[in-house]
């Protein structure tokens, strides 16, 4: 048997960006007013929070796990931040607390899964419901509002969403943390163990690595990114409604899958996730520019997820046969 270097990966790396570009061009041709700066900005608007959540959950999925609580975790953190704000807390303190709260939820997930051995699906399903409920309990089901640009505390929007002259500063914020996630996954020990646990957790354990600690950390990272997402969500939409947030995790998971990360663990890239998130936003905005409503977007996103995975299976089969 020869261990021939597969030609696959090179094409594979190009495929997702190519799909993104093709889709963009497609909507530029067929959509109305799609090819414009303002459309590009509105594509980015909806990428920020999905993208940040997707970066976090990429770690989890590469270990072979899942985190269903990211959507409600993000929303609860935003709600609690808003609640603090309404009770007179400093806006910057609120934002820091939002990240801290989401990170703690990640730690709870990680502890349930790695130390208490709950299956990730069950642990995070429970936490998903609990966070959704907790946000409503604390706020007494009152909608929480963040300051808009004109308010005295509106300065935070300049950093996390848009500058006064319309520059989408949120993209800078997201890309900075994209690089952080990329470096963590590729260049540090937590990244190495993330792939290793996804490949063969028992082998990692037998090698003397404290898998409980590292696996917990993976969920902590995921929670931390939910916190980052909650800031940008608040900055973008300003109105946070209790009882929402579930379902958003599926958008993030879809982005990760479109980006080529395997649900069975061990395989995946951060750049794939970024492209997956962008692709979903292009699809969303593009379909709207063609006059198709949100439900079409949901339908086509689902189709893209299935096509992406089918393509992956087909390509792996080809690679295995060559």
């Amino acid at each position, binding site marked *: *048997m020869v*261990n*021939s*270097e*597969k030609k696959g990966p090179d094409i594979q790396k190009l495929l997702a960006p190519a799909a993104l570009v093709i889709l963009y061009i497609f909507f530029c041709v067929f959509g109305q007013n799609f090819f414009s700066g303002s459309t590009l900005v509105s594509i980015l608007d909806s990428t920020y929070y999905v993208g940040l959540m997707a970066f976090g959950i990429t770690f989890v999925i590469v270990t072979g796990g899942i985190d269903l609580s990211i959507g409600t975790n993000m929303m609860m953190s935003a709600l609690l931040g808003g609640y603090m704000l309404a009770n007179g807390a400093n806006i910057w303190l609120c934002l820091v607390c939002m990240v801290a709260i989401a990170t703690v939820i990640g730690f709870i997930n990680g502890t349930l899964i790695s130390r208490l051995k709950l299956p990730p699906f069950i642990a995070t399903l429970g936490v998903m419901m609990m966070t959704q409920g907790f946000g409503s309990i604390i706020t007494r089901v009152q909608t929480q509002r963040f300051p808009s640009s004109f308010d005295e505390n509106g300065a935070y929007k300049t950093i996390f969403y848009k500058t006064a002259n319309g520059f989408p500063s949120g993209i800078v914020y997201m890309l900075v943390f994209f690089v952080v996630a990329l470096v963590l996954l590729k*260049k*540090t*020990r937590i*990244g*190495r*163990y993330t*792939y*290793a646990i*996804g*490949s*063969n957790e*028992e*082998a*990692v354990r*037998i*090698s*003397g*690595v404290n898998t409980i600690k590292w696996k917990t950390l993976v969920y902590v990272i995921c929670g931390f990114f939910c916190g980052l997402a909650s800031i940008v969500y608040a900055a973008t939409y300003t109105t946070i409604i209790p009882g929402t947030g579930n379902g958003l995790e599926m958008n993030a998971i879809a982005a990760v899958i479109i980006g080529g990360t395997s649900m069975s663990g*061990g*395989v995946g890239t951060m750049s794939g996730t970024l492209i997956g998130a962008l692709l979903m936003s292009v699809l969303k905005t593009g379909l709207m520019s063609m006059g198709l409503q949100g439900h079409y977007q949901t339908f086509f996103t689902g189709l893209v997820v299935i096509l992406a995975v089918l393509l992956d299976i087909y390509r792996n089969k080809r690679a295995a*046969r060559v």
Partner: protein
Amino acid sequence: MSQMQQSPMILQMLDIDKRFQGVHALNKTKLELRQGEVHALVGENGAGKSTLMKVLTGIYTADSGTILYNGEPVSFSGPKEAQEAGISIVHQELNLMNHLTAAQNIFIGRESKGFFLNDNTINGETQKLFDRLKLSFSPTNKVSSLTVGKQQMVEISKALSFNSNILILDEPTAALTDAEIHELFKTIQELREKGVTIVYISHRMDEIMEITDRITVMRDGQYIVTLNTSGTNLDEIINAMVGRTIYEEPKTASNVAPGTPVVLEVKGLRSREVKDVSFQLHRGEILGLAGLMGAGRTETARLIFGADPRDGGEIYKDGEKLNIHNPSDAVAAGIGYLSEDRKRYGLAFDLSVADNSVLAVLEKFTHSGFVNEGEIQETTDKYVRRINIKTPSIFQKVSKLSGGNQQKVIVAKWLIKDCDILIFDEPTRGIDVGTKSEIYKLMNELAAEGKSIIMISSELPEILRMSDRVVCMCEGRLTKILDIQDASQEIIMKYATQRN
């Protein structure tokens, strides 16, 4: 090896006792290793060899007993601590992370302590290890792209990277080719010369006779005896292992009378790994498929069973051409396949003996949509008795059975399905000597009843003992079909290595 006698004891495990929920896994066992020897640890499956090694490396804690390492009492809390003290183990089942490179696997848990990883360092260190072992692949190869043999060498490299004083190899050759085994033995010799003590666990007696200095035999968790390899023989070892003598005598003549009808015929079977293979199988015949790793034996069997797509060739049963495109076609035609990898392909491990037995024929026991448990139990009971499956009950999970009995459950499954052609792929791999002879007995009985068997085996004594005829393969081609009276280990090896 006379100087070996004077070497000091590097390790003594004395009166080691360990119970698991009522099972007495280790019963006052002992093991004594001299510095720089290759020490075989043998015994049937379940004799306690692996458990003893797990106690040594801190994976299990003994209930009582002492471990003296260089004369000092020790007790390791886990494999990492044992490794740091110079005791490494290469487990029977590979413990690698497929999506990582060889170097990343070897240095997992020992990456640079700084924030950023430095793969150049570990690649360099790995290359040094590979040079020492004369390995030809690169530290940056992903493990999933390596053959099982090379993966095994990655494991051994990893163990060596700890500068071990004691290296434990648990069934290291089970998946290696002859060339790889040869390299491994050379490595073991070199390590011994450098003073490394090696514990060698294996079922392959020829290997043990070849490379070990002393042999410790265990049975039922107890220490039986330690022998000098040069002063003993196979009979004595096996006697000690099973408490009785087993003879492995080759068959001298075929059990198939001339003129017995042909049941299965394959003509010009072709795929990527199989090149134009044709042969016939007679009623009641055991046809041995011999060859080295990569000879295409399993691949041929999988083509017949429809598990892989074939590029060409025909399959006939009782003179009629079969259209086999997938395993269910083959099963419908009465062909059953017993994979060498029982865990992956053969059994639903979490289901009971009864459930597994009827898995392939559930429709037989289903009436108007309801499964009739009574009928299932009756049938399973019958077959459990007929082929002597040792299980506390038919409701036992198969994961709790020994390897040999799992094998029998698969046989029962195919018999209930009315299969009259059975393909046994490495039927005794990883099965202890006692159960082995039971599997042999079962195969002979099946053949006597008129079932036809294709048996793939890498062990030539097994081929010679069981087969009526021997098909020799090399690199995907069929090189020779031998009648058993003309076959010997030397002749089979000649054809198994006959390249174009």
